[in-house]
């Protein structure tokens, strides 16, 4: 069975190689090859999963060592895999959702002439992401980590002829580098501390290591997670990443890649358990991002950016749970999986809407689409109910557990975190209801939005949205797009219940992550009731604002907070002022120092040498007698000095 593990990665890697090197002759069949190989990887995953289920909880972990990567005295890096319950969960999520999104992309990218390349990149992403989750040491994980960053870059900038897409790709890459630096420093620290970076020895010997070192490693890992998972303060790239094709947003920027940070923290749980300060930082980052993303999600009119804000916020929940320690690890992963289902479903739904609406993304130009796109409406609606935590659906179970775990942290901290999580749930209900109402209900604003009226200011130039000015004819998407949406909707509805009944998920992951029930100051029923109340409040406010009265097709000016949230709570302005301007000032002052001080010393030395030699040159005048004078003078001085020395 161990030998199958490498096959998981080999299939999509082969697909990427074939599709990217195959050239134009694969244009007709390329998408089928890519989808088949993704599916093959999923099948291998399922085979491994059934095999794993057949064994006892204690000996479920599989190891496969392929070859020694860097064999140096005192530094051993292997290409070796470790498949335990945690990795298995990710493998199934990545290959499962990945395959569905491959199928969806066949329809979505039908008219794109670079479809083969797109599938090549998608396969490359799958291979890198699988490498990330089944590596058995941090160095190999880092390879996968960089690989998904590369695939993300290539796919965000897939429509590179749009300057905005090219810029967004560059931005994502650059911001991710900051996080990647954290990971590389963490790995170096691990090597100096433990002498190795394999999971087993590192995580097994945290008990004997000083807390200071663990805190340093933990904080660096957190920085890495912030970059990859778009957490404050490295969150700014995710909104712009929506420039990529929608299947990419669904797969990479909602379901899988952005959750890599959560995986990293849960995987390194032993390090964080030994470093309470680092854990506190994780919790704070999670809580801040959870509110940040939710607030941004409320103000965006671009459907994909609203969903991106929501993704940020939901990953904030996961990071929060992961920072709670053994109380929360399992629930972080559970929310990650259910989120993978419903958020991928929501993004695919958004893509389906855009597909039928001439690639229009402004929700204010949607409205009343439920009649025209029934399948999209139902699947999107189920995803919506799941994400806001409607009782019985996936999000209800997983989010509720996280809120409970936050309260179970205990003390004032527990109360603050619990309240933040509850507030986040209310805002989630608000912004998702808003998306739902703007898109599928209300009057059909796209009808008159298409006729240009002189009163309408030119707020949305056509070139930016990519749409044309002819009136859209909303229609349901082809079967290849609706089937994945239906499957994901099933997952959104039933996954949470399936995991929670009899604590199946808890027992499945407990041997890897450990679990601790904590001591909640309030009972689980109270938390559930409170969640329900905030849910109803959130939905009601959204209904009052967007359901009851007609929505203007042009966004009103809005309050100060709304305007700030539309600009992503000024994150880019902050980065610009602090990092760009600050960096410019720093470089400018460094250049000044270089010009005046360093160059001054160098040029001064050269100039004084030049001046000195210019003076010395005049001594060589060609007169033999003056040379003779200097020779005699020298001889006299020498003799005088000798006599003087002898006299002394």
């Amino acid at each position, binding site marked *: 069975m161990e030998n199958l593990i490498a096959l998981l990665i080999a299939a999509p890697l082969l697909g990427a190689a074939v599709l990217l090197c195959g050239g134009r002759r694969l244009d007709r069949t390329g998408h089928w090859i890519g989808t088949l190989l993704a599916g093959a990887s999923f099948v291998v995953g399922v085979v491994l999963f059934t095999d794993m289920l057949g064994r006892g909880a204690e000996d479920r972990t599989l190891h496969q060592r392929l070859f020694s990567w860097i064999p140096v005295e005192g530094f051993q890096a292997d290409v070796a895999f470790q498949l335990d319950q945690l990795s298995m969960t990710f493998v199934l999520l990545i290959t499962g959702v990945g395959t569905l999104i491959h199928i969806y992309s066949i329809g979505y990218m039908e008219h794109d002439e670079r479809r083969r390349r797109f599938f090549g990149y998608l396969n490359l992403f799958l291979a890198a992401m699988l490498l990330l989750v089944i590596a058995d040491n941090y160095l190999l994980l880092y390879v996968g980590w960089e690989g998904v960053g590369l695939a993300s870059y290539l796919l965000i900038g897939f429509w590179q002829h749009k300057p905005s897409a090219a810029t967004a790709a560059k931005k994502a890459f650059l911001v991710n580098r900051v996080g990647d630096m954290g990971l590389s420093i963490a790995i170096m620290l691990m090597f100096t501390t433990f002498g190795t970076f394999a999971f087993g020895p590192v995580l097994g010997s945290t008990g004997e290591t000083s807390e200071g070192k663990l805190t340093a490693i933990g904080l660096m890992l957190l920085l890495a997670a912030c970059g990859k998972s778009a957490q404050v303060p490295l969150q700014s790239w995710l909104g712009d990443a929506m420039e990529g094709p929608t299947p990419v947003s669904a797969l990479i920027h909602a379901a899988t890649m952005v959750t890599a940070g959560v995986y990293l923290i849960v995987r390194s749980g032993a390090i964080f358990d030994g470093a309470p300060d680092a854990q506190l930082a994780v919790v704070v980052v999670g809580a801040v991002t959870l509110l940040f993303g939710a607030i941004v999600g409320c103000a965006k009119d671009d459907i994909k950016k609203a969903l991106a804000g929501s993704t940020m916020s939901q990953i904030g929940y996961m990071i929060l749970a992961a920072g709670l320690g053994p109380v929360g690890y399992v629930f972080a992963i559970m929310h990650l999986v259910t989120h993978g289902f419903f958020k991928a479903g929501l993004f695919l739904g958004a893509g389906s809407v855009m597909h039928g609406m001439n690639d229009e993304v402004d929700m204010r130009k949607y409205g009343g689409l439920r009649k025209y796109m029934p399948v999209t409406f139902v699947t999107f609606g189920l995803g919506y109910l799941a994400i806001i935590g409607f009782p019985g659906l996936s999000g209800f179970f997983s989010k509720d557990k996280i809120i409970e775990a936050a309260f179970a942290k205990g003390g004032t901290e527990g109360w603050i975190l619990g309240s933040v999580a509850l507030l986040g749930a209310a805002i989630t209900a608000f912004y998702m209801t808003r998306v739902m109402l703007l898109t599928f209900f209300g009057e059909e604003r796209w009808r008159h939005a298409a006729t240009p009226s002189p009163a309408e200011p030119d707020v949305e130039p056509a070139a930016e949205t990519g749409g044309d000015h002819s009136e859209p004819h909303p229609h349901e998407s082809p079967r290849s797009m609706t089937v994945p949406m239906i499957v994901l909707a099933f997952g959104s509805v039933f996954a949470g219940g399936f995991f929670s009944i009899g604590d199946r998920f808890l027992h499945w992951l407990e041997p890897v992550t450990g679990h601790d029930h904590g001591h909640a100051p309030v009972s689980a029923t109270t938390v559930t009731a409170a969640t329900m109340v905030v849910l109803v409040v959130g939905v009601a406010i959204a209904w009052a604002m967007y359901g009851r009265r007609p929505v203007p097709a042009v966004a009103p000016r809005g309050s100060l907070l709304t305007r700030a949230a539309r600009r992503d709570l000024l994150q880019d302005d902050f980065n610009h002022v602090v990092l760009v301007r600050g960096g410019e000032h720093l470089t400018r002052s460094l250049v000044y120092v270089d010009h005046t001080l360093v160059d001054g010393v160098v040029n001064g030395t050269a100039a004084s040498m030049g001046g000195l030699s210019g003076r010395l040159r005049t001594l*060589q*005048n060609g007169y*033999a*007698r003056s040379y003779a004078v200097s020779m*005699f003078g020298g001889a006299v001085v020498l003799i005088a000095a000798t006599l003087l020395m002898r006299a002394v």
Partner: protein
Amino acid sequence: MNPVNYLYLAALLFTIGASGVLIRRNAIVVFMCIELMLNACNLAFVAFSRMHGNLDGQIIAFFTMVVAAAEVVVGLAIIVSLFRSRHSASVDDASLMKL
């Protein structure tokens, strides 16, 4: 006679030769002054040889004479060819070797 007096004479001759080299412009005279300095040295060598009672100084004086004879051959040849090309034996006129 006290050999120290010969040393005084040698010093006097050397000084005359040195000032001649520095002051006179005619190449022949400068050359003669150089010979004068060499012979002042020879005189000092012989005087020291006498004072110390060994022959080392005498032998070195012979060496000096041989070297001086060779030098005269080369030096006079240079001065003659210089005079032929420039019609002057002034050392100051031959000041081309400068920057």
